[in-house]
């Protein structure tokens, strides 16, 4: 039981480090650690398929893509654009107000002690596959079209244009 609070604490710490560290590369690495703690959360929720997918897709693919782009653009602390302190303070206050609103709304909820009990193995690949290919077959196929469209769009966008090439050599 206390393990959950330990991992939740680590998640909050590392996500705070993600947004407050100056160097973008360190930021990506802290975000990877945050996602790892999320994977641990999924395992504790008995959602084993999601844990594996989170590990492979987020930590393996998406974060490596971020890191690759950061390295490609050769960014470091010196090229980091800084906002004025006033904007930072205002942004932090706005975020805290949002959090206070959320917590106030949850307090207004009915306060019965709902305990999560991970009964049944709903998180296994077998059960999720049955739901995914039965009830959610159409959205699943549509998401494949979405990924294909994103792939074509990314290739078209990142392709070197001739006019740009002349300007910057």
């Amino acid at each position, binding site marked *: 039981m206390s393990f959950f609070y330990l991992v939740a604490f680590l998640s909050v710490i590392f996500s705070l480090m993600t947004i407050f560290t100056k160097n973008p590369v360190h930021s990506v690495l802290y975000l990877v650690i945050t996602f790892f703690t999320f994977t641990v959360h999924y*395992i504790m929720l008995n959602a084993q398929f999601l844990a594996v997918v989170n590990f492979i897709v987020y930590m393996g693919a998406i974060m490596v893509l971020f890191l690759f782009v950061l390295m490609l653009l050769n960014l470091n602390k010196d090229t980091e654009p800084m*906002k004025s302190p006033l904007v930072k303070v205002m942004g932090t206050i706005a975020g805290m107000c949002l959090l206070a609103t959320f917590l106030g709304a949850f307090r207004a909820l009915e306060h019965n002690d709902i*305990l*999560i009990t991970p009964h049944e193995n709903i998180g296994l690949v077998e059960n999720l596959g049955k739901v995914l290919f039965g*009830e959610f077959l159409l959205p699943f196929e549509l*998401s494949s079209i979405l990924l294909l469209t994103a*792939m074509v769009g*990314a290739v078209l966008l990142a392709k070197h244009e001739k006019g740009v090439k002349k300007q910057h050599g």
Partner: protein
Amino acid sequence: MDNMVSQLQGIPLQHYLIFCSTIFAIGVIGVLTRRNVIIIMMSIELMLNAVNLLLAAFSAHHADPAGQVFVFFIMALAAAEVAVGLAIVIMVYRNTKSLDIDSLTKLRF
């Protein structure tokens, strides 16, 4: 793994709500306070992940696999978003030589 799962007995759903909204608020603060486009996109990923975990928690609580299927769809959407977004970032950097979000005000007509 059974040991880890049994650790979960006795965690109220309310604590998951508080934890996930904290992570979501941290993502919002990141979007509001940073100027680097890539870090703003990473904060959006943080917000998406907070919602994912909350969906999984509700799914485990109600013993309904539909919530975990939604998480799967959100992950597919996040992957598409990151691919297109990073391509746009590369194009903007190639043209303006900066990753400042304020340089994108040139996108106005």
